[in-house]
């Protein structure tokens, strides 16, 4: 049994090496397939990351009136932080907001002048609220505007909540990214499927040239499993080599794309993603290559093994 297995493996390796042009064509097609599969991984990573970073940017700012007491605001912060749907609440004092405003407008002489003439700080303190999920913002805002305990007797201390201004933009962006992700994935899956079928056909074609050989093997008294084995080994080898080529190709490509696209993708670097997820990408590509190669060979040889 062991010698048979060894023979199947060495036979497959020899077949692969000796049928040069055919093996080359098979590897090439499989490389294209696996490159597309790899692109699918990267695209999905880009989209997920963009969506995540965008969702991370989304927050709700609550601006307080200028005479609101810091203690009241901090109390509201505590209450908000105790809500399960709130991820974080950041307090910015009136002074901090003023410094922030000044640095943001330091090139705008007119605004700074107006601020100086005013003499007092016109800005109220603010709370920046981040929810665990973007869909929670509605509920949080509702909580703020409806709970009477946070509007003490001295009149409402909340000046404005910017959620209502941002809501439409946030919704549209989320929808757009969601749609892009779905459409992108659908297209790439379609491409991956098409190229897999082409790879299958190529392997079958490669084995078609060996059909006389298969007939001879049968006549010499080789069992079907023994005939099929080396072809499957050769198919697996083609898949593996193609996976290695595709992985090697992704190295310079992601390096270049990582550099140029990183600012555009909000700091997401494809190259670092590739390196840090190399194990996962390697297993997916090698696994797909091996599976396609083995399956195609198995199907192709089966056709010529019927009596």
């Amino acid at each position: 049994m062991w010698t048979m297995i060894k023979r199947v493996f060495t036979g497959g390796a020899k077949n692969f090496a000796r049928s040069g042009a055919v093996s080359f064509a098979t590897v090439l097609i499989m490389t294209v397939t696996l490159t597309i599969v790899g692109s699918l991984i990267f695209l999905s990573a880009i989209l997920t990351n963009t969506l995540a970073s965008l969702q991370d940017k989304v927050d709700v700012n609550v601006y307080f009136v200028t005479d609101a007491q810091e203690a009241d605001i901090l109390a509201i912060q505590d209450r908000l932080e105790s809500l399960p749907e709130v991820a974080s609440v950041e307090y910015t004092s009136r002074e901090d907001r003023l410094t922030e405003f000044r640095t943001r407008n330091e090139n705008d002489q007119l605004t700074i002048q107006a601020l100086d003439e005013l003499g007092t700080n016109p800005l109220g303190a603010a709370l920046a609220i981040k929810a665990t999920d973007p869909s929670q913002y509605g509920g949080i805002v509702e909580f703020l505007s409806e709970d009477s305990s946070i509007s003490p007797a001295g009149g409402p201390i909340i000046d404005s909540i910017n959620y209502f201004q941002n809501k439409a933009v946030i919704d549209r962006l989320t929808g757009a990214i969601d749609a892009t992700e779905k459409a992108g994935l659908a297209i790439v899956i379609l491409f991956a499927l098409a190229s897999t079928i082409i790879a299958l056909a190529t392997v079958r074609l490669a084995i078609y040239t060996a059909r006389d050989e298969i007939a001879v093997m049968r006549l010499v008294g080789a069992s079907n499993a023994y005939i099929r084995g080396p072809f499957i080994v050769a198919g697996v080898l083609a898949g593996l080599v193609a996976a290695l080529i595709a992985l090697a190709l992704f190295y310079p490509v992601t390096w270049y794309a990582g550099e140029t696209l990183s600012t555009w993708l909000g700091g997401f670097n494809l190259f670092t993603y590739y390196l840090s997820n190399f194990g996962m990408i390697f297993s997916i590509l090698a696994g797909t290559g091996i599976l396609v190669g083995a399956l195609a060979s198995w199907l192709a040889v089966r056709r010529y093994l019927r009596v």
Partner: protein
Amino acid sequence: MIYFDKVTKIHRDGTAGLEDVTIAIAPKEFVSIVGHSGAGKTTLLKMLLVEDRPTDGTVFFESTDVHALPKSKLHHYRRKIGMVFQDFRLIPNKTAYENIAFAMEAAGRPQDEIELDVPHILDLVDLGGKAHHFPSQLSGGEQQRVAIGRAIINQPDLIVADEPTGNLDPVNTYEIMDILKKINELGTTVLITTHNKGVVDAMARRVITMDRGRVIRDDMQGQYIL
């Protein structure tokens, strides 16, 4: 050893390949089957090798109905028969040595036995110096000798040769027939089909003559008469 019992084969297009053929072949015989092209010689061999199924009748090999064998047992049966073809049918991307070794590997023989037997067989068919040539680097006669080496390596009970000299010049034809004769003298049954009158007459062994799917003559000390 081989018994064709009223074998009839109607091809898919309706023409008769074999009609009511009954032949018995004893062990250690050397039998030539002669006849025009289309007389049914190759169809007869296909029935024996289970490459095709008869429409009617049975084929026995040592009391086994070979067409009743399940597919999974077929390769064991085929190992008992060494086959030689007009077009050699070597595996093109294997060397002479590997082509012969393949038959042993397929039969599951151990490596040390293969390393011992293959050079011996290569010497027997006079190809000791060309063991590592690919079929494309060998002449027709040399390729046929590789094919014979492959056919006999597993010490089969029967050698079946379908027009083994059909593609060869007279000198190579003589050499191939000489090798087959030697194999027969060593105790292996040999069944060949041929067009070559010279070959048949020189052998002076049993000749079965076929015409249009029927056996028309069967002579123990036969001549090629058509």
